[in-house]
């Protein structure tokens, strides 16, 4: 996993609530057995005018010019500004894989669905919760100012606006540590292998029926 320390990037606004993971990456693309290559199909049903299929040459497909990520001013964006309950629905990790593959490193929204939120941290994508009021202000600022950029400083837990004003955000200490260092969870957990074995012994005595071969 790539480290996340600081991201200075162009902001793209996705002004709708309850964006679900079926929208982020439609089901036909889940048939891949890889972790990469989902970016061209991020928001497929909104981005293109035809129905996408795996293995297509996406550069030849008709684009929906209205869709925000197709607008010239948002090309190269690495911070996504979204509305409440972003990432609801299916647990597919293909959603953060697609966002990352497209180039997004941070997502700012008033709230996230739990599973999606969790999945982001496993992939070096930082989901940031801000208040509804702050989200509203940011939407207004992005729409009013072409080329609007933000800096996300994870160590300081701040979103820094172009005028230097900062918005503080919260993050779990463990998740912050993993992101800052690009750490693989499994290796960390296996450092506690003895504790896991000890726990298993106790459970095997209390609930032997759980432990089938």
């Amino acid at each position, binding site marked *: 996993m790539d480290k996340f320390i600081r991201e200075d990037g162009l902001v793209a606004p996705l*002004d*709708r*609530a*309850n964006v*679900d993971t*079926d*929208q982020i990456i*439609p*089901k*036909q693309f*889940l*048939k*891949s*057995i*890889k*972790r990469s290559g989902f970016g061209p199909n991020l928001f497929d*049903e909104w981005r293109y005018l035809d*129905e996408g299929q*795996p*293995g297509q040459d996406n550069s030849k497909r008709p684009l929906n010019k209205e869709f925000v990520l197709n607008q010239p001013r948002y090309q190269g964006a690495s911070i996504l500004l979204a*509305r*409440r*309950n972003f990432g*609801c*629905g*299916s*647990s*597919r*990790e293909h959603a*953060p894989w697609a966002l990352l593959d497209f180039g997004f490193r941070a997502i700012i929204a008033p*709230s*996230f*669905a*739990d*599973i999606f939120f*969790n*999945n982001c941290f*496993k*992939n070096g994508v930082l989901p940031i919760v801000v208040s509804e009021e702050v989200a509203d202000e940011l939407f207004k600022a992005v729409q009013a100012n072409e080329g609007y950029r933000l800096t996300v400083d994870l160590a300081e837990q701040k979103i820094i606006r172009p005028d230097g004003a900062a918005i503080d955000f919260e993050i*779990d*200490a*463990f998740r912050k540590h993993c992101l800052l260092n690009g750490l693989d*969870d*499994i290796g*960390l*957990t*296996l450092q*506690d292998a003895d*504790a*896991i074995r000890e*726990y*298993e012994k106790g*459970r095997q005595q209390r*609930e*032997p*029926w*759980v*432990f*089938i*071969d």
Partner: protein
Amino acid sequence: MARTLYDKLWDAHLVKQRDDGSALIYIDRQIIHEVTSPQAFEGLRLANRQPWRVGSNFATLDHNVPTTPFKNASEIEDETSRIQVQTLEDNTRAFGIREFGIGDVRQGIVHVMAPEQGAVVPGMTVVCGDSHTSTNGALACLAHGIGTSEVEHVLATQCLVAKKMKNMLIRVEGELGAGVTAKDVVLHIIGVIGTAGGNGHAMEFAGSAIRSLSMEGRMTICNMSIEAGARAGMVAVDDITIDYVKDRPFAPKGADWDAAVEYWRTLVSDAGAKFDTVVEINAADIKPQVSWGTSPEMVLPVDATLPIPEQENDAVKRSGMERAYQYMGLTPGMKITDIKVDRVFIGSCTNSRIEDLRAAAVVAKGRKKADSVKQVLVVPGSGLVKQQAEAEGLDRIFVEAGFEWREPGCSMCLAMNPDKLMPGEHCASTSNRNFEGRQGNGGRTHLVSPAMAAAAAVAGHFVDIRELESREL
């Protein structure tokens, strides 16, 4: 100190509390399917790791499989689906994981198969790379969906890194009216608290209306806790739970059974246990439900008219409604019963168990699919559900009504296999999500109970099941 059911499940699985607030939680069961596991197995291989406790895993095929008869993976026409199915077969064989594959009568939708096999019993922690893992919480388990990185993590360590969620209680008191099912209860709950209502919470369903439900009904409710924002839904243990688990193939037997039952009886929230959020619902207020929009919270009683966006004060919600109207091709103020349906889908991890099929068959019996309805799919949740339904003659009732009787799988709930809606088609569906494109690009989903779906198939539009003459099987 008085504890909730969730508190007890959490405490019983806590391996280590870390100083930074996170914890290691032991996972008793992992259920595996073909879509969210290939990258996890690949990760194990790359790191040269083996499953920590191979017997804790149960695999089956569901998302991609065709619902027309076939004998082995090579007969799956869609190449990408075929590769994914074969990849699971290869991976389970290579790592020695138990799999109920093609041609095995136990094959079926993960969340139908696991309780049916007794692979999941009360008191367990259960995960699967599928958000509807919450279904298994009906057996008083801590069960929730995880992403593929966590699938790999559980395979390698038998643990998850987690943080304790908040406790939410949804209490439904009273008697459910005629024609009102578990599906209507959970759709009503989502309508009340919204799709983000349960975010950050483990949700316990309680009250006399929940206790009166069968295990199948409780599974329907826990299944959709994720649509109410809660990763995990659960119901406390009672006689109905224990009767359901008894004699299932992987359930404890003999002296183990007696010890298990004694422990399972403690899996209830203590009197006076503290919940962070409590929602009280009066069962008598619940009518048969139909979703009209593109989020499960856009749901109404069948006798309602569609909402007027201008009357919504929340700007974000209002624009969501306007977008939903545009996508669904419906008009504000119209009656729900005036919405015509093109296809009907009876199935999914929400409603494909035997009780669901019986409820649909009661309505279908002696009636015919409306000519205007292009297709009615009935897809049992597993090979065993199919067998049981056929033993009861339900398949003949469906076929005589002009419905199609299919092989088990996820089917048109998410349209990863050939069962799909065409653009613009309206579908009465017993599944769980009415998201844009969920059942096929441009398809328009209306979430309903099995009886309501069958009634819509017969009438060609939504009808109030309470007004239909009731029959017996």
